[in-house]
């Protein structure tokens, strides 16, 4: 009988890791030995995990991104990025391929959902002052806020590049309007547009550019920045909620935990960390990340996937006539998340005597540029005290919260007007008015 070889250090006898740890040591091991979980902390406070603090919007966004990658995979096999065949291949996905309609709907609903989730996540971080450094030392939360703004822009651009791919009328004219906004930038505008669409007209070169951006460049950038975003969350001390417990709480006496070792002197003097502890490390207010944090993350992910999968059964994806550069639909509308911009570019052309500034430059470049600029720099403009970190609607941040709400409501209002109250020739109609019937062709 052969002798059992001795166990080498660092060699793991179990084939998988455990998500049901039997001890604190097991729980820590479950984090550090798992590539997927190693970005998580070993312990997490109950307050940080509360459903009603973060609403898990970041996790939901990540789950939507995962779902988009997964549902995009079969679509990659079925879609042909050529002007001649793109429309037909999407039509096949919609009407011929088994489950094609549903897969496309999942991808589309998840994409729109991700735009919404990212915006909600941004609003949550803003309202809780979570870009602030509550502890103040060695924290760089403002930097992670900037990364978040970039991720928001990437998400919008991802959605926009996907919008063109069906190569139908909806896609073609939304991209015509969108890229012409780029050409309204003084001096460099036309070159930017030409680089973006690979020529002067929206053609095969445009389709392949948008396709490659949509399936490789932008998802790659999102994945890389997402990893960095999560790493920064850890390195800044977890959610901003945790800062409150670290910095703003005075240590209190807690009973010794039987699983921990204390020095006699530490117990006698009361300086052992869990004899006098803050909430962040007290045993009765923290839990092991495995299984508690992992379980909640899985619930959020599963819930997101389930919701989108069910919605996709009921929400049909539009597919209009094939793209026709010769006929502009009336009205021609941008994707809903850009409608507020379209509404602004309609209203902002300025005439000063014979001097005219194109609305596309003011509404499409200056205004959103300013908005994004101010949004990016907000953590440096916010002068509220450290105590306003990680708390919903802290009184010290009342004014800026109001400003944020007003801007958001204005954007929503403009979006609604663009969606529901603009008829042929972009004329204003109340929702209860019927649009005049116009010949669809000249």
């Amino acid at each position, binding site marked *: 009988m052969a002798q059992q070889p001795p166990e080498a250090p660092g060699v793991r006898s179990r084939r998988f890791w455990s998500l049901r740890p039997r001890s604190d040591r097991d729980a820590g091991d479950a984090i550090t030995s798992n590539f997927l979980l190693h970005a998580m902390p070993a312990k997490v406070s109950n307050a940080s995990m509360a459903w009603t603090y973060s609403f898990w919007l970041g996790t939901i966004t990540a789950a939507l991104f995962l779902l988009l990658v997964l549902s995009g995979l079969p679509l990659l096999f079925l879609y042909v990025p050529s002007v001649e065949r793109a429309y037909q291949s999407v039509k096949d996905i919609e009407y011929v391929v088994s489950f094609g309609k549903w897969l496309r709907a999942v991808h589309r609903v998840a994409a729109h959902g991700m735009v919404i989730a990212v915006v909600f996540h941004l609003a949550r971080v803003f309202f809780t002052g979570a870009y602030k450094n509550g502890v103040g030392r060695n924290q760089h939360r403002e930097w992670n806020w900037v990364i978040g703004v970039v991720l928001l822009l990437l998400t919008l651009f991802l959605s926009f590049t996907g919008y063109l791919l069906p190569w139908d009328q909806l896609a073609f*004219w939304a991209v*015509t*309007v969108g890229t*012409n*906004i780029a050409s*309204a930038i003084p001096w460099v505008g036309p070159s930017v547009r*030409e*680089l973006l669409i*690979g*020529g*002067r*007209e929206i*053609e095969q*070169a445009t389709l392949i*550019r948008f396709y490659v951006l949509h399936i490789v460049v932008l998802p790659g950038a999102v994945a890389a920045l997402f990893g960095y975003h999560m790493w920064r969350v850890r390195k800044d001390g977890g959610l901003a909620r945790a800062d409150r417990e670290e910095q703003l709480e005075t240590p209190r006496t807690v009973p010794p935990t039987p699983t921990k070792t204390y020095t006699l002197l530490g117990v006698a003097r009361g300086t052992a960390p869990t004899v006098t502890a803050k909430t962040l490390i007290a045993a009765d207010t923290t839990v092991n990340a495995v299984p508690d944090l992992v379980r909640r993350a899985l619930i959020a992910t599963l819930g997101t996937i389930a919701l989108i999968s069910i919605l996709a059964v009921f929400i049909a994806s539009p597919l209009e006539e094939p793209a026709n550069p*010769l*006929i*502009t*639909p*009336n*009205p*021609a509308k941008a994707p809903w998340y850009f409608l507020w911009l*379209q509404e602004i*570019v*309609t*209203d*902002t*052309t300025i005439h000063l005597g014979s001097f*005219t*500034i*194109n*609305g*596309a430059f003011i509404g499409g470049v200056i205004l959103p540029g300013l908005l994004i600029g101010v949004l990016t720099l907000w953590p440096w403009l916010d002068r509220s005290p450290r105590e306003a970190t990680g708390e919903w609607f802290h009184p010290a941040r009342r004014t800026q919260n109001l400003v944020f709400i007003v801007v958001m409501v204005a954007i929503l209002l403009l979006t609604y007007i663009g969606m529901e109250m603009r008829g*042929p*020739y*972009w*004329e204003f109609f109340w929702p209860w008015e019927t649009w005049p019937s116009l010949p669809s062709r*000249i």
Partner: protein
Amino acid sequence: MGGTDRRDFLIKLGTGAGACALGAQGVASLRSLAPNVSYDAPTTVKLGPPAEFSDGLKFLADERLFIFRNGNTFHAVSAVCTHLGCTVRAEALPKPETVDVGGSPLQLTHQFSCPCHGSHYTGDGVNTSGPAPKPLSWYRLSVAADDGQLVVDLAEEVGRDFRLTV
């Protein structure tokens, strides 16, 4: 010179070489995306013999162009909205009116509206309302020397006094 200096030097050399290599790759990759040859449609287009155009307006979808004929004079107005490049639509006026355009009289039979953002233009292309920042372009029309067809040059804008008399 100590060993640390050599190590520093080599680290800098390696980092610099790596940065140069990646930078050059990046520049080359980006430059390759700026097209050197345009396969877009040519800007000088033959439109057919003048006799094929009846009096009034004809919309040429491929060129996104309106050709107007009034007796033996022709002029061409672009159908590309000056705001964001959508194709404007022509609507016939209830009754034509004659106005002075660029020093010579012009019979206006239509007006133009853009479906994207609601810009409106008069029949000679002047923007009257909506976000359009400037009038629709007028392009040079000529008669081809070889076969007598009407030719438009989409690269050459002309003033609104332009008329081609055939």
